[in-house]
């Protein structure tokens, strides 16, 4: 069932490289509001999740967070911790949800849930540690709305990526495989 480990690792590395590239490109796009961006790397996390499994998704995500922060020069800065908190929050909501793919849930549902969890995780870290200002919750509703829209867009993108036959033959059927 499992491919040879070298091949598996190469796929993880390739997906992580794609995710890092997307995140760096996104960081170059000026945004009117800090904290609002499309989150295109979300697509790669989901592709890794449904093609390579749960552990691969964690690996790709952590490689992306560390790799992109190295390129952007934000390693261990507040931005890095926010990125990591968002990524971990998104992964933790994907943990229970991804087994519903593809029978009960498509990548759209996964992406929306992950995007909201990402924003909530970031916000909680920001509020608890980085900017503990009593007025900070005023920012949360617009950020959540932006996350919902961004999650829907990346989810639709992920669905179309996953429907490509070259990707489709790698997609796992969670009901027949064990742990990832």
């Amino acid at each position, binding site marked *: 069932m499992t491919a040879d480990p070298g091949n598996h690792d190469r796929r993880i590395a390739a997906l992580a490289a794609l995710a890092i590239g997307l995140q760096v490109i996104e960081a170059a796009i000026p945004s009117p509001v800090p904290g609002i961006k499309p989150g295109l790397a979300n697509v790669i996390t989901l592709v890794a999740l449904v093609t390579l499994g749960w552990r691969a998704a964690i690996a790709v995500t952590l490689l992306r967070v560390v790799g992109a922060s190295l390129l952007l020069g934000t390693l261990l800065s507040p931005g890095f911790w926010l990125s990591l908190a968002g990524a971990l929050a998104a992964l933790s909501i994907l943990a229970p949800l991804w087994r519903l793919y593809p029978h009960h849930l498509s990548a759209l549902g996964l992406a929306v849930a992950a995007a909201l969890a990402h924003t909530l995780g970031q916000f909680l870290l920001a509020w608890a540690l980085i900017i503990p200002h009593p007025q900070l919750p005023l920012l*949360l*509703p617009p950020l959540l709305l932006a996350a919902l829209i961004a999650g829907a867009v990346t*989810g639709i993108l992920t669905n179309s990526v996953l429907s490509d036959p070259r990707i489709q033959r790698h997609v796992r059927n969670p009901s027949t495989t064990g742990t990832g």
Partner: protein
Amino acid sequence: MHGLRWGDALVVTLALALVGSAFGLVYTPAGGATELVVTQAGAAPRHFPLNEPRTIGIEGTAGVTTIRIEPGRARCLHSPGSQNICERAGWLERPGDMAVSLPNRLVLQVRGPGTDFDSMHF
């Protein structure tokens, strides 16, 4: 749109509910401010409870800053500043809201029951 499942509708509905309730919870007028703290350069901070309507005047180096206090809120009515920055801060009603009169070297801030940070910078 092909490939969608019933779970997607559920997730999106829950997400919309979450976003909607976040807007509702955060943007409803909360109040919660219980006292006004007047901090003036060279003087100990003075505390005024926000319980009954009254108008107070604070003497400063440039003149008198007139403050209107009402239950749960306070505002700067008049201040010697030429740009009316203190007045334009409007009603201070959420804990942490503040108005500043630089000519009078005066900071007005309303506070709630808990102790909160003003801000932190890195």
